[in-house]
């Protein structure tokens, strides 16, 4: 499995460019929606072009991120991504069946981001929602943007060393959850009219609206109530799982080696016993 270094270097530049461009399109879309408030101009009846801009800008941004992220992946990463997506979907579905209070649908995305880097994480997130939307639950597709952002940030924070100590992942998860709530608010507000399949969440949004919040504001506040908690749990669970993996497996990913994602290389057996005691 010898990696050719030369042709890869030049391709990395275009990869990073596409990722940055995609992220910029998404941020620009959001900023425009907040500043121009096109959806609440009212125009006598119905909404303005807010929903079109939210959907279009996010779609273009996600497409750029996917095409950039898939540019040069090692074989090992390519094999990892489908497993990450399957974990997202299966755990998310089981969680729905058990009726847990959180989403828990981004465990695979975060894991891939931590093991294989921001680009791979973003690709896992975005493709995960596309596949989920195309097979089980079409309304999830527009949220591909949020999923991509979760994978991207997970990779970036892992690079900064957030997975070297057990107390960092929940804190980072909190931060990522706040960003997720902000990014997904325009989609919930303008595409889905600020409601949710869950009656509880819709009631919360309705309460915010009744207190005078805008559509976007109410959706953002509703997101703040569920996203940060969900991502805190997700990041912590991912940390426990990855530390329990054999280090031989973790170090097959160049990203983990290059940035010392899990700190110094040493055998650790303690977390597995921690997990066992938790499971009791």
């Amino acid at each position: 499995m010898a990696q050719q270094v030369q042709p890869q270097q030049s391709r990395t530049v275009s990869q990073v460019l596409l990722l940055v461009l995609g992220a910029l399109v998404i941020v620009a879309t959001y900023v425009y929606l907040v500043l121009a408030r096109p959806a609440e101009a009212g125009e006598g009846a119905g909404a303005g072009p807010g929903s079109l801009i939210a959907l279009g800008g996010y779609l273009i941004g996600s497409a750029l991120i996917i095409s950039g992220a898939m540019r040069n992946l090692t074989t090992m990463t390519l094999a990892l991504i489908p497993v990450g997506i399957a974990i997202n979907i299966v755990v998310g579905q089981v969680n729905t069946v058990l009726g847990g209070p959180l989403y828990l649908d981004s465990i695979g995305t975060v894991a891939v981001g931590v093991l294989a880097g921001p680009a791979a994480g973003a690709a896992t997130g975005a493709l995960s929602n596309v596949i989920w939307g195309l097979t089980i639950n079409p309304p999830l597709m527009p949220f591909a943007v949020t999923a991509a952002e979760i994978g991207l940030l997970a990779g970036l924070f892992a690079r900064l060393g957030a997975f070297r100590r057990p107390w960092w992942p929940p804190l980072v998860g909190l931060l990522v959850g706040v960003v997720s709530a902000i990014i997904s608010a325009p989609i919930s507000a303008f595409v889905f009219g600020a409601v949710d399949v869950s009656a509880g969440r819709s009631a919360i949004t309705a309460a915010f609206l009744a207190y005078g919040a805008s559509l976007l504001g109410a959706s953002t506040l509703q997101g703040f109530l569920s996203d940060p908690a969900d991502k805190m749990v997700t990041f912590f669970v991912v940390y426990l799982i990855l530390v329990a993996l054999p280090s031989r497996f973790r170090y097959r990913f160049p990203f983990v080696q290059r940035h010392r994602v899990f700190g110094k290389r040493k055998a650790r057996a303690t977390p597995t016993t921690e997990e066992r005691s938790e499971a009791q």
Partner: protein
Amino acid sequence: MGSRSCSDTGCSASGRRARRPRRKSAARHSDVTTTFYVDRSSPLHGLNPVTKLVAGLALIVMAFALSRPWWASAVLFVVVLVPAVAIGGVQRRFFAMLAKFLLPLLVMLFIVQSLFYPGGREVIFGLGPITVEREGVLFAAQTASRLLVLVGVFAALLLTTHAGRMMAALVQRGMSPKISYVVSATLQIIPNFQRRADAIVQAQRARGLDTEGSRWRRAKALVPLLSPLVLGAFTEVGERAVAIEARAFTVRGPKTSLVVIPDSRTQQVARWGLVLLAVGAVVSRLWV
């Protein structure tokens, strides 16, 4: 080493498990890869998948671009989507799917927005502190008709298009084969994962794990499910990587495909026409 499983989705490497005969999975999990696709021949099934995808996306863009009158997107749904689905012969399943995904959402939408829409001025119905405003009802109606198109397009796509053929057709039109591999591999992994998740849940129940009761209890029940499931999944990754490498997947240069999805000049022209139509709708919305 993984085995090689070939179907009309092309060939992909997968773990040894994929070769075992499938047991019936528990009733509450349906096999997601085959749930919705209805295998029959109709003019809609026969179209090149890329044409259907472009048409669907163009329809969604138009639904979100046309804002006046508020029922413009509803017209698109009734005049374009419903007949298309009828031609495909999947109308019953189509409406069942829409009901399942959208009905609760739409009920919520009308309740919340007709009562609390921020831009509401004109009261059409009042009862003490509860007032229903015209603007809110219109906003809900417009959002609802757009959602019908958005979800309807994808429902129609999945009912009449095999995911593998869709990927093959997209690769023929220049999409990266890596994306196609990720999608096809995922669709193969999920059923076998669901079976494993079921087995783990049952094993943990046999140990006396509580999967009923309060929400907090049920959330806690996920922990002993997650670790075996995820750890088991990750150990297969190395095997898959070797299998991909052995098929020379990463070699650069031209590759041949097992299945060739038929395409025609007419459909190519139609696709460009649809793209122009969608762009026109957006331009008319933003600059006119």
